[in-house]
Each structure stands twice: as C-alpha cells, then as structure tokens.
C-alpha cells in the first residue's frame, strides 16, 4: 500500500511536470513559431519598443526557453526575483508570475478564486453521482417500464443540451420569472446554508448533463451485469433480491462508473468554466476567460496548472476508491 502510494505520487509529480512543460510550450513556443513575440503579448497592444525590451529583460524572456522553464519551475518551488537594473521584485513561492493586466501576483488571485470553483465542482459531482447512478439502477431494474423510458428520454435530452443554454433557461425561469432562487457565492465557512442556496441552481445545471451521461452508463452496465452467471448463482442459493442487487450487482456496476468519473474530471473543469460564465460566478474559470480576452498569459498559465493539478489529484482519489468498491482490485 505504501509502495503503491509512493509510486503514484511520483507519477503525479511527473504528470505535473509534463503539464507545466506543455502549458509553458503553448505560451512561449507557439507565439515564436507563428511569428509572435511573448514580450509584446505581455506588454499589451500599445507598448513601445523600449517598454517591450524592458519587459523582456525583466521577465528573462531573452534567455533560452529551457532556462526560462527551469526558472519558472524554480519559482514555483522556491520563489524568484524579477530584476531590471536596480529594480528588484521578489515573488514568493509558489510564484506564478504577475498578471499583465492588473500587475498583481497571480497566486493570491488563484487562491481567492479557487473556493468558488471547488464548491461548484464538488456539489455538482455529488449531485450527479447520486442522481445519475440511482436513475440508472432504477431504470435497469424496471427495464422497458414507463419510468425507464421517461428517464432515458430525459437523459438523452440532457446529454444533448449545452450547459450554458440550460443555465440561461434555468435563470430565465427560476430566477427572473419565479424569483425562487438567486445565484451568488457565500463562503461555506461563513454560512453553509446560504452557500448551498446560492449555488443550488448552478449545481443542478452542471449536474444535469453529467447525471444524464451516468444514468445511461449505469443502466447499460447494470443490465449487462444482471445477465451474468454469478447473479443467477446468488439468486439460486436463495439470497433475497435486494441483497443480490445491492451486494452483487450494484457493486460491480460502480467500477466502470468510477473509471468514467476519473476521465470526466478533466471535462468537469470545462463545465465549471461554462457554468461560471453563465451564472457570473467569480471562480477560476471566469478568471481564465477574462485572462484569455485580455491575452493575460500568466493568469491563463496559472489557472491551467491549478486545474491540471486537481484533475490529477482527483484521479488518484478515484484510483484509491477502486480498491474500496471492487475487491478484485489490489493496489500493488
């Protein structure tokens, strides 16, 4: 178990290095290949050549890309100093550099925005797992019934609707027309009830898409498993039907659901961006979208890396859950 954890953690670090390398490559090599100048991008559109040269020197953009990458990684781990002549700015670890729009350090911004996105993602994730799996199981057990057909038709509509469209429809009906719910972010530590109330609509909208996918997946898997020999054996030895379903069928159904969950966490980041934009929640996704329209590359770099880190970490949790759900899986 310990050896497994150590090996997985090493893999996480390697993955993160690759992600930083790719992200770094996108922002520093692509503009070069296509004839752009990162310093000019950083400086903004109306900067004069002297200012661009100054920025290039201060940010070390005149150094080879490899050196820049090493400095960037070093900055993440130990902090770094940006020097331009006598003018030295210290950026404490983990240093993601400075926003070129607001000239503020990127890391505090990320820390500030993170809880919003995390709350959104975790709430939606719990909601869709519960609703999606329950719907799928019930549909599989009552195959062909009115419930099954209604649930699967709803699920098919769910996977075909863009989140931002459902989001705007929900806002139009529940907020502007009926005045039932307003969307806002209140920190959990401040008032858990207001936190849940303010995020309920985004949760439902984001969870609807995934609940639909998981209901379809759970139903298909469950139907396949109910046809297996060991289910017949369990029934033949006289186990009560609820025990057969819960202990034998459901448990085997959860393994593929977990596999897909691990894969969907990356997509969830995208879903969170769209949901935040639709509901004007001030999370990481919003920060990324604004940074993109401002060409504020350090902020995009920071958000991308934070997102990649959590996707990788969450995948580790999912892999650990495997062993809990499926006794055949041994962590070795």
């Amino acid at each position, binding site marked *: 178990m310990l050896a497994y954890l150590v090996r997985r953690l090493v893999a996480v670090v390697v*993955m993160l290095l*690759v*992600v930083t390398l*790719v*992200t770094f490559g*996108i*922002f520093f090599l*692509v*503009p070069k290949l*296509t*004839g*752009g100048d990162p310093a000019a*991008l950083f400086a903004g559109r109306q900067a004069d050549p002297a200012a661009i040269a100054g920025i290039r020197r201060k940010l070390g953009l005149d150094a080879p890309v490899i050196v820049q990458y090493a400095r960037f990684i070093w900055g993440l781990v130990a902090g770094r100093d940006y020097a331009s002549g006598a003018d030295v700015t210290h950026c404490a670890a983990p240093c993601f550099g400075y926003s070129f729009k607001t000239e503020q350090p990127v890391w505090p911004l990320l820390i500030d925005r993170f809880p919003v996105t995390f709350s959104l993602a975790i709430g939606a994730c719990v909601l869709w797992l519960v609703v999606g799996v329950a719907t799928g199981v019930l549909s599989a057990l009552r195959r062909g019934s009115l419930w099954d057909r209604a649930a699967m038709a709803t699920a*098919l*509509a769910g*996977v*075909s*609707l*863009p*989140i*931002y*469209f459902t989001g*705007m*429809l929900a*806002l*139009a009906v529940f907020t*502007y027309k009926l005045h039932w719910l307003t969307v806002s972010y209140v920190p959990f530590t401040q008032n858990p009830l207001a936190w849940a109330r303010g995020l309920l609509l985004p949760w439902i909208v984001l969870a609807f898409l995934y609940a639909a996918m998981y209901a379809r997946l759970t139903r298909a898997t469950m139907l396949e498993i109910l046809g297996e020999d060991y289910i017949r054996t369990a029934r033949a030895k006289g186990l009560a039907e609820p025990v057969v379903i819960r202990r034998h069928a459901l448990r085997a159904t959860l393994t593929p659901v977990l596999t897909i969950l691990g*894969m969907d*966490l*990356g*997509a969830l*980041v*995208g879903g969170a*961006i*769209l949901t935040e*934009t*639709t509901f004007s929640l001030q999370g990481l996704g919003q920060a*990324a*979208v604004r940074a*993109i*329209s401002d*060409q504020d*590359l350090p902020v*995009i770099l920071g*958000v*991308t890396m934070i*997102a*990649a880190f959590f*996707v*990788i970490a969450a*995948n580790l949790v999912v892999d650990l859950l495997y062993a809990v759900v499926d006794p055949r899986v041994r962590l070795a």
Partner: protein
Amino acid sequence: MSAPPHEPGATAPADITADLPAKAIEGRSPGRIAWLRLRRDKVALAGGAVVVLLILVAVFAPLIVSLLGHPPDQLHEDQIDPNLGTPIHPFGGISRRFLFGVEPVNGRDLFSRVVYGARVSLLVAFLAAVVAVLLGTLFGIVAGYFGGWVDALVSRVMDLLLAFPQLLFIIALVSVVPNSLWGFSGSGVRMAVLIVVIGFFGWPYVGRIVRGQTLALREREYVEAARSLGAGRGYILFRELLPNLIAPITVYTTLMIPTNILTEAALSFLGAGVKPPTPSWGQMLSAAVTVFQADPMFMIIPGLAIFVTVLAFNLFGDGVRDALDPKGTR
C-alpha cells in the same frame, strides 16, 4: 434418427423445397444485417433524416438564405425598438419576413445567422472527428499490435491527454494562435485551428477502443495465418486488422460528432471560436447572455439549433451502435 420437423431440408425432399418462397436461406454480410436492423429502428432513422437535412441546409446555406431570409450581416434597425433595443414584434420579432426573429440592437436576421452557423458547426465537428479518428486508429492499432514499449508510450500519452483539462488547453491554444498564419487570414484560420485542436484532444477516445480491439484480434488465427504466409506488418495492420475494426470506429465517429458540435459551440460561447462577423451558434448564445432577460427568444433560437442538431446525431449514433453490435437482438 429423425430430424427435427422445423428443418425443412431434412424432412422434405428437394423437389418440394424448390416450390417454397425464395426467402428461405440467404447469406447476409454483417454490413447488411446492420443495415436491416437500422432500417427497423424508427427513432434512429428520424435522427438520421434530421442529420441529412442539416447537412443539406449547411451546404445550400446561401441558396436557402436568399429564398427565405436576408443577408446574415444586413442590419434591420427598423425592426428594433429604439428605446429598449429589443425587437418591435413580440417573441423576438418572429414574423413572416423574419422566420426566427431578429437580433436585438442591430436587427440582423436570426434565421440567416442560424443557417450559416450550421456550416461552421458541422464543418468543424466533421473534420475534427476525421482528424481524431485518423490519429486514434493509427496510434491505437500500432499500440495494440506491437505492444511492449510502443504500447506503454502510446497508452501513457492517451492517459495524459484524457486527464488534461481539455477545454482550458484548447482555449489557451486558440488564444495564442494569431489571426493570420502563414499567409492565410480570417475565419478560415480559426476554423482550421479549431479542427486540429478539437481533433487532437479527441483521438485518445478512439485510440483506446482501437487498441483494445486490436489486442484481442491480433491473437486470432487469421492473423496468425497471414503472418505464417509471410505477410508484412503493414499488410497485417491495414488489410487484416483494420477491416475488422471498422464497426467500432464507425460507432465512435458518429458519437464523436455531437460531442465536437458541443465543444465548438462552447469555444465560440467563450470567445475562442470563429471570429465575428462569421456567425456561429455558440457566439450567438454568448451575445444573448447579457440580453436574454429582455429578449429570451434571442437565446432560445440558437440554443434549440444546437440541441436539435446534437440530439439528432445522438439518436442516429445510438441506432448505428445498436445495429452494429453483434450481441444485439433487435
């Protein structure tokens, strides 16, 4: 030993079977069985019909717009209430002249913009799927057939790409690519970038399936036979294995197109899609965010366009999957 009575060939002399209707025994290829199954699946056929209709709309967009609409960039400020900025007619200005109503503020014809938007949406989705299927098939078949370090490398790369927060990376990539590239400019560059990037992030999904199938197929006798007859690697990969992978590849291609449509719309919604004035559905929804409280139809029209298109592709794709599934009974 008497043969079971339902076997006509055993119980009846040959001259009697000759009089039976000709349908008794018929060799059916897997493709034909799939087609027969698909033809009986009414829902899938309806989806397929909508898909064909949408493709026709996209191809003949200029003709359709000249018959039923106005040029997509033409302004109709006479259709707009000068004080509110919303269409003068109810329901977003839907009328006989403007079938889907008009855009708030500038009064552009929504019907024309939706029709032209279909072009961007379908073209990007189709070509991105082609890119993903080509890459996924190539890497999947190579990884599955050769195994060893090739497989390990390809599998790790696929894991990595699947774990990436894709939408963020796509936005980031699209945002750093300049608007004019190697002498080309305009919305064509953006579309090319979208196709390549969406396709690139889509290939691992195909690659995993193809790899798994190849792993199972490479141990089969006919592959062994081809190898023992001295067939080269290329021959085995593309003449022996590939034809047996067509069914899963077809299913994943049809099911990938709706996902690509949603991705393209999402990118346009976030401002990383094709640039205005080229109309796209995601871009229209993004413009609607600020005004839909006053003019909900402006949001509903492009939203429904996306929904209907994606739903039709999903229904058709599900039907194709069921039809090609050898375990299926329908």
